[in-house]
């Protein structure tokens, strides 16, 4: 058996005296997509944050390419694109300024690429407008434009479909599936059921696990 890209071993998470999940094992290979579902408060976001190394598990550990996450933060950072519930978009900055900085944190990119990515997510003409004047869906699109900018292989996305319109949802689904087909790995939470599923699609229901 080969070492999986990302692996969770006997993961447990406890928040405020409440055990969200326990003895959770996960093996994620390249080309797979994992949808984490479950009712509110079942620990979906916590699981994503554990996989990103933002939170420390109560028990168990997360392995990246067979080695503990804490031992290789740099390796994780080079491979990971994390878009949380809040995507790190500053309302006072324009879409272009926001993306320039978010990309610079990982891999600097040029202006053409950013404009191109913004056009991809349907924000042509909004490049130099302060983000607080954009609608919630448009702000979400600014964050998601990072998925079109030479992204790393592992995407961990918390509720990426929130506030998107029907067209935006379909486009994002296609983009996620395409990323998996090309050997990427997507972990996401969402309440909505995906129509575009890649070959390596799986679902983990945290609500059913507990029950």
């Amino acid at each position: 058996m080969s070492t999986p890209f990302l692996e969770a071993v006997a993961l447990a998470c406890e928040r405020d005296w409440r055990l969200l999940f326990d003895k959770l094992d996960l093996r994620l290979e390249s080309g797979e997509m994992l949808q984490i579902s479950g009712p509110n408060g079942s620990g979906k976001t916590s699981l994503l944050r554990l996989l990103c190394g933002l939170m420390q598990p109560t028990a168990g550990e997360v392995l990246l390419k067979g080695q503990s996450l804490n031992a290789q933060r740099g390796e994780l950072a080079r491979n990971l694109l994390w878009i949380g519930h809040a995507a790190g978009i500053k309302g006072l900055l324009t879409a272009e300024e926001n993306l320039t900085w978010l990309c610079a944190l990982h891999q600097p990119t040029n202006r053409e690429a950013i404009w191109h990515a913004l056009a991809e997510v349907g924000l042509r003409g909004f490049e130099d407008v302060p983000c607080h004047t954009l609608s919630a869906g448009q702000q979400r699109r600014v964050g998601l434009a990072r998925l079109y900018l030479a992204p790393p292989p592992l995407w961990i996305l918390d509720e990426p479909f929130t506030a998107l319109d029907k067209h935006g949802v379909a486009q994002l689904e296609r983009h996620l599936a395409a990323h998996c087909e090309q050997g990427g790995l997507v972990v996401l939470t969402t309440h909505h059921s995906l129509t575009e599923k890649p070959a390596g699609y799986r679902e983990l229901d945290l609500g059913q696990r507990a029950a």
Partner: protein
Amino acid sequence: MSSVFTLLLARETRLLFRRPAELANPLVFFAIVIALFPLAVGPETQLLQTISPGLVWVAALLAVLLSLDGLFRSDFEDGSLEQWVVSPHPLALLVLAKVLAHWAFSGLALVLLAPLLGLMLGLPIGTIPVLLISLLLGTPILSLLGAVGAALTVGLKRGGLLLALLILPLYIPVLILGSGALQAALQGLPAVGHLLWLASLTALAVTLTPFAIAAGLKISVGE
């Protein structure tokens, strides 16, 4: 790596200048606190001059502290901090850039405003250089130490008073050395000793506190 440092400096500067009122608030607070004292203790020049070293420093300390309350709050709420933590760059370096940008505009403005208020309190012209240098060396320490508290309390709904409680005791050496320098200058004594001590504390703060700030932010983000 250094390019990220300068980029972050530029970004923070841009953010500060898009909301200039927030830059001005600590300065106005500083001026008001200083104006309160002549009203409270009376306008006798001699008395004001004697208490002015302590007065200027306590006011500066409170002004810096108040300006720091929101230092990381918006970054915390909009998810920027998470992006910093998962980035390949050392978090300590990023926070150093952030605090430096904050100090360069709020702390430095305070330093430049201080001589004016000092003169209004009756400080002789000869002591103004010491006032300037002591504040120039002391305010970065105030910003850095305060940022540790701001990082630890950023996840809390009402962190303001708690921040003061955590950080004010740690400010005491700076207060003693800074006002001591000014007092020495006022009595015509050399203030170099105080200033050198302040300088070494600044060096210590610049090297050590970014790690504490980074640790604090990781804890707050990981909650």
